[in-house]
């Protein structure tokens, strides 16, 4: 027994469970707009994550129960499942999760030691290895020409079987970001492209509502003091600012900043992925720099780079800069000279 002998009850598992809870509204919206397949994806990823985690913990002789129940593997699994197409074949989900937990998490030392966000490492690995599978995004129900039933979705996910009378193409389509990118190459203007039915007021039909729910979940996490405002605020502000500059310069070729905030992985990234404690800076100023760096990089990758969405790569890119950012943004210590110091030493 050593002082302090009292402690707050909040454990790591409580924090992780709150993160999962904050994702629930967006998941519900996901189901509403794109069908229940996402629930299967999430379950699949969760089971794969826990199984991998258990196996590695066993090999590393770690106590299984406390580590399996810390919730960190589940958070990784959910974030990965929500980042990849909901109708992805089962093995894609499993391979991605395996990569995230085994390579990105445990080979770096396990909980608390990984330099890169495990879910984003899994996502990047899939994106590079299976690019075509990763672009088969389901169209929102309101737009799908032929609607697959749940069992048909399952047949496809687990058996690769498309229903007899329809092809996969019938229910998948390019995401709004992808459409924008490819159509711009065809010399169309943004306004022209956005008249397509997949676009809506803010960004894509359905996806913008999901993004809105990510935003709400993020605000809940902020209210619960699970995350601080620094990273999401600077991320969104930097993306808005960069997109705004391009937009002002040439509105015909660059989508509005608001579109970018609600398209693709922006909101999920800003509130749930970039804010990952382990792979983000610890100082307030460092968090601001980190978030802003992701915002700018993600926009540049989206607009000038080779991938339709840049959030995952931007996060990984900035993850690598975290030790440097931390080292150069150390705040002033009490009683040491610096800003707002009125003592007389140093």
């Amino acid at each position, binding site marked *: 027994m050593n002082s302090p002998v009292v402690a707050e009850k909040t454990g790591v598992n409580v924090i992780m469970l709150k993160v999962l809870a904050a994702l629930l509204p967006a998941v519900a919206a996901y189901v509403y707009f794109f069908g229940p397949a996402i629930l299967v994806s999430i379950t699949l990823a969760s089971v794969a994550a826990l199984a991998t985690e258990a196996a590695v913990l066993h090999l590393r002789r770690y106590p299984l129960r406390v580590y399996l129940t810390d919730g960190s593997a589940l958070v990784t699994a959910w974030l990965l499942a929500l980042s990849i197409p909901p109708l992805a074949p089962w093995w894609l989900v499993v391979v991605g999760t395996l990569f995230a937990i085994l390579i990105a998490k445990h080979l770096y030392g396990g909980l*608390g030691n990984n330099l890169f966000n495990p879910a984003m490492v899994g996502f990047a690995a899939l994106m590079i290895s299976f690019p075509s599978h990763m672009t088969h995004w389901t169209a929102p129900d309101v737009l799908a020409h032929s609607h697959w039933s749940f069992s048909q979705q399952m047949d496809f996910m687990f058996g690769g079987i498309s229903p007899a009378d329809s092809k996969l193409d019938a229910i998948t389509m390019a995401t709004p970001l992808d459409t924008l990118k490819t159509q711009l190459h065809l010399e169309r203007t943004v306004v022209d492209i956005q008249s397509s039915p997949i676009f809506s007021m803010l960004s894509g039909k359905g996806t913008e509502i999901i993004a809105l729910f990510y935003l709400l979940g993020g605000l809940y996490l902020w209210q619960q003091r699970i995350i601080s405002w620094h990273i999401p605020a600077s991320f969104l502000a930097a993306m808005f600012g960069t997109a705004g500059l391009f937009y002002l310069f040439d509105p015909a070729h660059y989508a509005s900043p608001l579109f970018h905030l609600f398209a693709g992985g922006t909101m999920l990234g800003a509130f749930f992925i970039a804010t990952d404690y382990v792979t983000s800076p610890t100082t307030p100023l460092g968090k601001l720099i980190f978030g802003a760096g992701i915002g700018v990089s993600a926009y540049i990758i989206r607009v000038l780079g080779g991938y339709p969405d840049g959030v995952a790569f931007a996060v990984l890119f900035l993850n690598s800069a975290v030790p440097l950012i931390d080292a150069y943004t150390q705040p002033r*210590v009490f009683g040491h000279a610096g800003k707002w110091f009125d003592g007389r030493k140093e």
Partner: protein
Amino acid sequence: MRTLHPFHGGVHPPEHKIQSTQLPIAVAPLPSRLIVPLRQHNGNPAKPVVAAGDHALKGQMIGAPEGFISAAVHAPTSGRVVAIEMNPAPHPSGLPDLSVVMEADGEDRWIEHQPFDYRAIAPADLRNRLRDAGVVGLGGAVFPSHIKLDATSLETLVINAAECEPYITCDDMLMRERAAEVVQGIAIMQHAMGAREVLIGIEDNKPQAIAAMQAACQGSGFEVVVVPTLYPSGSAKQLIKLLTGKEVPSGALGPQVGVQCFNVATAYTIHRAVNHGEPVISRLVTLTGNMDEPRNYEVLIGTPIGELVKAARPRADTSGYLMGGPMMGLPLSDPGVPVVKATNCVIATSQTLFPPLPRAMPCIRCTRCAAACPADLQPQELFWFAKAKNFAKAQEYKLFDCIECGCCSYVCPSHIPLVQFYRFAKSEIQAQEREKKASERARERHEFRELRLEREKQEKAAKHAAKAAQVAAKPDEEGGDEAAAAAKKAAIQAAIERAKAKKAAVAPQNVEDLPPEAQARIDEIDERRAQARETAEQSVAVQKTDEGQGAQP
């Protein structure tokens, strides 16, 4: 309403202060045997001035202050001195300390004592009398008060009555019941230091104490400042920031920014010492926690804690005792340790009251610790460096500015005992520093010895040569021998004295946090040594030159 200047961070653990404030302060029963450690304050332990077998009266000095940073220790009651021996003391190290063991005669007879007029004597005299009355900071740091009272032309005197640790209520009860006496003590402090303003900081969870102090301060010009209940508001530097907005520089003390801070209970003991002539032989102790009758007691210093707690009737499932609060307290390994001047609270612990913390998980860098740190540190980085034994980095990240308040450990969702890591790192660094200094001293000693041997060799050779020449010149002269013998004797004497001086210089000494006077003394000695070395080197050089010349035909 005074503007407060909140410090960064802080936590608000459950207060648990109601339990021990239900009953008024009581006098603890007189124990049959008292153990009075001679080290109850920062600095040198007191020197025993009684011997086993002596009879001492209550309030009689049994340990005299030794050196500048020290304070006297007194007999808490009348009785026989049984022994002066090593006894377990309530100290983090768990090491025993030299203590005067007394057997009470039950008469509790006071030594003759009388008040004195502090306005009529010189401030230095007042300070000496307080040192001889054993007045030390009763907030827990037990720094001898007479040294802190030496501050002159002070801007603000801060009285620390925040009492921010959960469970502890001895300052609260003291103010409720003895506010007028506390205020008299504060007046003496103000007089000693010429403080321009006096601010008394009390947390807002003590409304009765606030009211009592406000009433007692009427007309005195002292201001009671109500501060929000937030741990660690009672940490001196944090309280000074809170009340005055001034930040005491790292490694410096309050007076550097014109502020001095004293615990409220210290003010009370100063009043007793001056206006009643009573030395510090008792203090208020909160007995609380897993007890049927939690309460504050006026306890004689030296009362064995195991015996004292019986007064508050600890419950059957009590697993141990904690001296101090749950945030910074010290678990007592031995209930036989006595109450000392630093003992403000004894908490009985049990599995239900203080359940063991869950298994520590890896740090996930959530920065809750950094948000809670009142010293604006980055505890997660310090933890990382301490764990990796990267002590240089830990120091670079200002490890030694950690006040070990425990806020970081309290909020850590991974339940990492962060403070233990910092204590470990600090002690490792201190050990390394000591080792480094010791080896530097050894090297210096070695080099000096080499120089001396060389010089002696040359002196001998020169002497031989001179003698040979003398013999050659005047074979029957004897005075030369006598002179040589005298010179030799003088040289031996000088060597002995040099050895003595050197021995004194290299004797182990506490070289951390020295007062300026001591530092000046050390510097002076160092300078003398450097001069001696220089002289030796010069003489060797001269000899060498002589030899060189002598070699020429």
